[in-house]
């Protein structure tokens, strides 16, 4: 299998993830965009691991790391989303502007 197939797939996934993070109006879907980007990276790692025939399989090891971290991250992220929903009654990132510079003269 040529290398550019998984790389093309990973690029498409990553772009999809970036798009989701930037434009989705629901925080849960934003988190899903983040997951897409992480998995695009995982795909890259595994693809290069196979391509380079690494005896230590560093790519696969790092992919496992990333999966574990992604699991932790999504746990935290969903907890934040839940709390935001409880305090604000919605989960739209565009309407969460309490950190804006309010007192511009």
């Amino acid at each position, binding site marked *: 299998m040529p290398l550019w197939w998984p790389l093309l797939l990973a690029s498409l996934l990553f772009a999809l993830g970036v798009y989701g993070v930037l434009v989705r109006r629901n925080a849960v879907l934003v988190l899903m965009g983040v997951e897409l980007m992480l998995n695009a990276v995982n795909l890259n790692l595994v693809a290069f691991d196979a391509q380079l025939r690494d005896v230590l399989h560093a790519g696969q090891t790092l992919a496992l790391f990333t999966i574990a971290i992604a699991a932790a991250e999504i746990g935290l992220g969903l907890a934040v989303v839940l709390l935001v929903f409880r305090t604000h009654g919605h989960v739209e990132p565009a309407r969460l502007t309490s*950190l*804006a510079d309010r007192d511009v003269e």
Partner: protein
Amino acid sequence: MTAVVLCLLGRPVLTAAVVLAVGHRSPHTVRGAAVAGSALCWLLAVVVAGAHLGDAAPLRRVVVETASVGQPLGIVVWVDPLSCVLLLLATTVSLLVQVYSLGYLARDPRYPSYAALVSLFTGAMATVVVADDLWMLLVGWELMGACSYFLISHHWELPEARAGAVKAFLVTRTADLGLLFGILVLGERFGTYRISEILSDLAAAPPMRDALWLPALLLLVAVLGKSAQVPFHTWLPDAMPGPTPISALIHAATMVAAGVFLVARMHPLFLVTPRVLTLLAVLASVTMVLAAAYALVADDLKRVLAWSTVSQLAYMFGALAAGAWSAGVLHLLAHGAFKALLFLGAGAVVHAVGSTSLSRMGGLRTALPHTFAAMTVGFAALAGVVPLVGFFTKDAVIGAAWEEARDGRLLWPWVAWLLVAAMLLTAVLTVAYAMRAWLLAFFGPTSPEHTGRAPHDPPATMRVPLYVLMVPSVLGGVVVLDPAAVLGPGGGADLLHGAEALTTTVLVALTGLAVVLLWRRRGRAVWPAMTWPHLPVDVLVERGLVRPVLRLAQVVRAGERDVVDAYAEGTEASVRGVGRLLRRTQTGRVQSYLLVVVVGAVAVAVLAGSLA
């Protein structure tokens, strides 16, 4: 003997330190320390003077000097008869002033600093008169200026005292620049800063006439400022808001005497520069007549005395300009005695009446018999009544000017005649204003304006100095009979002049008679309240110096505000503006921030890729 001189120089500083250290903790200790310090000074001065008056060899000793390259500077003392008589004068008057101040400032809250400054003042004068190194002289000279500033502004809650002190300081300081540059020029011309070496160089190889006009002129400027001669004469009368004992000290022994002393000390330098001497003679003539005329119309007793000091100092300068060294110095001593007496007497009058205005005095003869006696002797000595000291020294001065005008070696002839005419006219005016002040204060009806408790003679601490000062005022004329015994071989000129003495005596008698007749006929109405126009010196200073400086200050202030501050404020404003722009981007929307980051990262990546 050097040790004694050094003790004499150090003692006033020590006294001042002790007095300031004790301060307000113990009034009796402060007063004791001040008077004891002055008495010790006086004793040391007597010891020094006893050894070096007359034709004894002068004491010259290098105490310490710099060892670096160039002309050495240092503490070098030179005690000759001139130093001795001035030391005696300064320490005596200072001691009497300290004793007098015990009564005069009995309830003054600022006594400790006052006593310390009087002590320091005396020390500064002693430094000037025994200095051989010109820089040491300059130190004492400037120290006196500073002390006089502090003492004149003793009552600093009065605006006129502050103004007078500032004026005295600024005028004398400006003139002192002449001394500084004069010292530099002298050091450059002679290769030494020692007065004795400069004088011996002058004696050994007399330079061309007027070759040394520049340093002589510079010294003259400083002297005119210190001794309040035209055109610097305005500060002395304005210094009158100071305490009266301070006026006595400044007028008799320290501040203004230093100017005459410097001319007397550097007299050989002035003798080889007749042009400068001629200038001095002209200025002295103008000063003595003007000041006497102002004294004739002043309403303030202390101002009368102040103008009289200016006028009498001009006599001394006239004598020195005519080449009569011993006559000038002796008149300085005589004036020191009777002017101290007059000021201390005036202090007693002011103490009793509570005002310095002559219009509020009158008929004090019976109320203040002791003060009356003292002031009578003082005024008589000032006017030159026959057996008193003023007669002998003034006669010596006028006689010397007369001889100079007749024989003419130094001055331009018409200037010498002008000097003689001014001296005779001033002698008449002196009698007139002395009698006027005397009559207005002590005779006639008691002033109706005077209210309150009855005036009475001052306490003993203030009476005793008056009596002590009456002795030299009455008997001082003896010195004129044999000046060489006091002033050494250089001062041995014949100082008695029969014809001139007769002339002045007749003039004094006639003027006195005229004044008394007028007084008999018209009473106090002889002297209506009037003022004579002053020389436009103050106006000139105001127009030429004060206003331009103020305008310059305004320009500087405007530059500060409109240029320098504009930059500082512009920086602030531009930072604020840029900050306001940047704040617009802080919307709080996380996704738009992230968009910027992604666009930026892509842009960097594209840029890096295209460059690689």
